């Protein structure tokens, strides 16, 4: 109920003489706070020459398996650290540690994405060495993580061939936000009706500049190209 005139309608569609009401301009980005934390993370990462990636996908696209294989392949060649995001459990961080890399799990609870503030704290605890590769596995979700910058160098979107090839059309903002798309589980292509060329064409509708790699963590197809892509990024971050 309106305290000024006693009307029942709390939506003031009509004009009152509320002399004490005033309009103030704000002009602030809704994501400004997250973006400030992300900028701070980016500064800290850059100062230590760390190459950071934000891995995004639907649940079940094989992000953790790809990470495990990557950690194993880089063992003894390159320091790797991992931040794992999931709503619940520390199962993924345990898998990464078992593969030989330090890992920290962030549980977002009801949250559907990692944010830059949480990643900043994880970064303090993890303290990756200078010149390391930092891989941040986001919550499996193709919507929200597109908006939340974590301070990474690139978002990498992983799409497995057991999903629909039209995912880039359904979730264009994520494919627009990513710099690299990994078409994953390519060893299963003989068994599914996934059209890789069509998928790439759809992804390029959302993002004409997106790079694409075809990878199978099971057969090893495309792993050397992926490791080469990572090595180039690490070299640039250290320079």
């Amino acid at each position: 109920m309106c305290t000024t005139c006693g009307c029942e309608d709390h939506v003031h569609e009509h004009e009152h003489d509320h002399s004490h009401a005033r309009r103030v301009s704000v002009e602030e980005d809704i994501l400004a706070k997250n973006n400030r934390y992300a900028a701070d993370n980016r500064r800290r990462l850059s100062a230590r020459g760390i190459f950071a990636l934000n891995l995004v996908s639907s649940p079940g696209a094989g992000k953790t398996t790809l990470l495990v294989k990557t950690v194993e392949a880089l063992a003894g060649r390159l320091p790797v650290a991992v931040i794992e995001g999931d709503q619940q459990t520390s199962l993924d961080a345990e898998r990464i540690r078992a593969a030989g890399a330090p890992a920290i799990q962030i549980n977002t609870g009801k949250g559907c994405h990692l944010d830059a503030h949480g990643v900043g704290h994880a970064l303090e605890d993890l303290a990756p060495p200078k010149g390391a590769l930092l891989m941040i596995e986001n919550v499996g979700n193709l919507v929200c993580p597109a908006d939340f910058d974590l301070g990474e160098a690139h978002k990498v979107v992983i799409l497995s061939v057991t999903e629909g090839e039209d995912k880039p059309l359904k979730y264009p903002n994520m494919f627009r936000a990513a710099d690299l798309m990994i078409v994953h589980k390519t060893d299963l292509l003989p068994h599914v009706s996934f059209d890789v060329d069509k998928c790439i064409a759809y992804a390029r509708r959302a993002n004409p500049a997106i790079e694409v790699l075809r990878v199978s963590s099971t057969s090893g197809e495309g792993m050397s190209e992926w490791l080469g892509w990572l090595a180039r990024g690490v070299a640039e971050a250290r320079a």
Partner: protein
Amino acid sequence: MHEMALAESVLGIVEDAAHRERATRVRAVRLEIGRLANVEIEAMHFCFDAVTRGSVAEAARLEIDEAPGAGWCMRCAASVPIGSAVDACPRCGGYEVTVTGGTQMVVKELELE
């Protein structure tokens, strides 16, 4: 729900501004949301009402201005209107269109007392 996180961010901005302006109540919040942003307007209204309960912005009116989507077509070398990030260029039908506008999510102004 994604809009819940965004509504919480909006409330944070609104509370800071209300505090700065020594306001006792927020009557209205005006947002500008681009049509290519990841935001369902209906869901945003629902979440805004939920997160503002018990705050200085309780029962505030949420006004949302929608901003059109825009892209740059490389083939036409021209700015074109688009409805989604995967739309074809309305002039040439090609897909070499880079999004240039319509992704913003901004708190524009508040009505305070």
